């Protein structure tokens, strides 16, 4: 595609409990912009996403072979510093999971574990990232209240702010709006569109309209294999493969 890849997957195979979940995946995800993984449930899109920050291999009975290069470095190599590598990637899960602490501490958590201690500096970071996710006006009077009392949409924006606070390069979203109401979904989508010029976003979604609204590039996965990869327009409007065509038209889901 002529663009420098930010994440480059080469010959990736994943077995979970002996099942071949991802089959010989190779793909270059370009720098910046939004790349979406679409496909029917169980096709391996979430698994693929979780291989990018090595959360997958925390679980037992998982075998991974092949390479994932982030900024040219194989994250499955021997001398990889896991914490540094994961810090590069923010993660938004299907349901928001704030840490069991206050709103303030949720944002400050990342900077704190990476060595930022000064109160003024932390105050500044908290405000900055809460403003960046349009939460500041909603929560500025209750920063020290529990994050679990926020609405679920606010919690998801808090989780995004928390992730941004460690200054990642990549944001991984695993169906990040699937638990949200339409208004919260829209706000998250607007945020993604703003962030895509600064960050590389990789989203898993099963909502085709969302993929169309957001994506620069789309990857269609089926039964653990990449069927088609191209710009959003190519994949959604002029799919080359029969399977993609059937999925996009809604015959398979």
């Amino acid at each position, binding site marked *: 595609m002529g663009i420098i890849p930010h994440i480059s997957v080469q010959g990736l195979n994943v077995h979970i409990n002996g099942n071949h979940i991802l089959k010989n995946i190779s793909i270059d995800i370009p720098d910046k912009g939004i790349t979406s993984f679409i496909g029917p449930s169980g096709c391996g899109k979430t698994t693929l996403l979780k291989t990018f920050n090595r*959360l997958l291999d925390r*679980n*037992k009975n998982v075998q991974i072979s092949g390479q994932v290069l982030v900024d040219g470095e194989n994250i499955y190599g021997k001398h990889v510093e896991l*914490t540094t590598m*994961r810090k590069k990637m923010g993660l938004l899960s299907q349901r928001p999971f704030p*840490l*069991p*602490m206050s709103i303030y501490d949720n944002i400050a958590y*990342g900077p704190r574990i990476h060595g930022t201690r000064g109160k003024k500096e932390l105050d500044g970071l908290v405000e900055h990232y809460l403003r960046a996710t349009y939460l500041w006006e909603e929560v500025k009077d209750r920063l020290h209240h529990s994050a679990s009392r926020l609405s679920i949409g606010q919690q998801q924006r808090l989780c995004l702010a928390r992730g941004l606070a*460690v200054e990642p390069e990549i944001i991984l979203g695993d169906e990040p709006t699937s638990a949200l109401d339409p208004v919260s979904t829209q706000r998250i989508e607007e945020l993604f569109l703003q962030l895509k010029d600064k960050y590389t976003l990789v989203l898993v979604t099963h909502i085709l309209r969302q993929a169309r609204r957001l994506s620069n590039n789309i990857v269609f996965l089926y039964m653990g294999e990449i069927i088609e990869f191209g710009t959003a327009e190519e994949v959604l409007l002029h799919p080359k493969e029969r399977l993609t065509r059937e999925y996009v038209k809604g015959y398979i889901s």
Partner: protein
Amino acid sequence: MVLSTLIIAGSLGMILWTIMSRGIRSLNWDMITKIPGGGFYIGKGGGILNAIVGSVYISIGSVLLGLAISIPAVLYINAYARRNAWLANITRLVFDVLFGIPSIVYGAFGFTVMVYFGLKTSLLAGIITVTLMIVPILARAMDEVIRLAPEELSDATYSLGATRWETSKILLRQSTAGILTAILLAFGRAIGDAATVLFTAGYTDSIPTSLHQPAATLPLAIFFQLSSPIDAVQNRAYAAALILTIIVLIVSLAGKYFGKRLSRHKI
């Protein structure tokens, strides 16, 4: 079903009634502020402060020591060696087996070890033996709650670049209420058990001033006084039982109160 409920509620009522009605007569200020005077065990003046202090020392000491042993073990199988299913299963099996061993066996074991090392009955020996008994209680209860913490919570901390230790701390925070319950459970067992301390902590009429001195405990104070043929001494056994019950009650209520406050951030 109604009958079973009545039997359960009824027995609690009867227990409380028995220790209240017989104990309250002998319960006075002297009981909780004085150590046994001369002739205490034939019904003369004094109190059981020695046993109260001894019991509190042993139960607090063993809970602290027990936490220091069980928390790392539980974190190890839940956050560090997650991929090693074999190790986790073996560890959980060991906890289950240890949990099922009667306390008198711990007492006998503690005694054997003491004899081997040439130690006398002491506060320290009591604390160590009681710790052995409550470690499986603490570990099993904490393992249950930490396993319940959602997977996504660790996913979230790891993806922020947290280490396994930093993630463990979040897991502990998330499980505060459950850990407190585990502590209360262990404290109740520790303060109420007679068999473990019988050979190891011994019994004395004075308050221990160092870890190497023997220490009296409330369950043994109940036991010894109840074996007396004198009615007044027997009543004192019930008073001691009442004091023991009140201590456990206070600790449980305090635990519940702090548990609510500490887990206010729980997701």
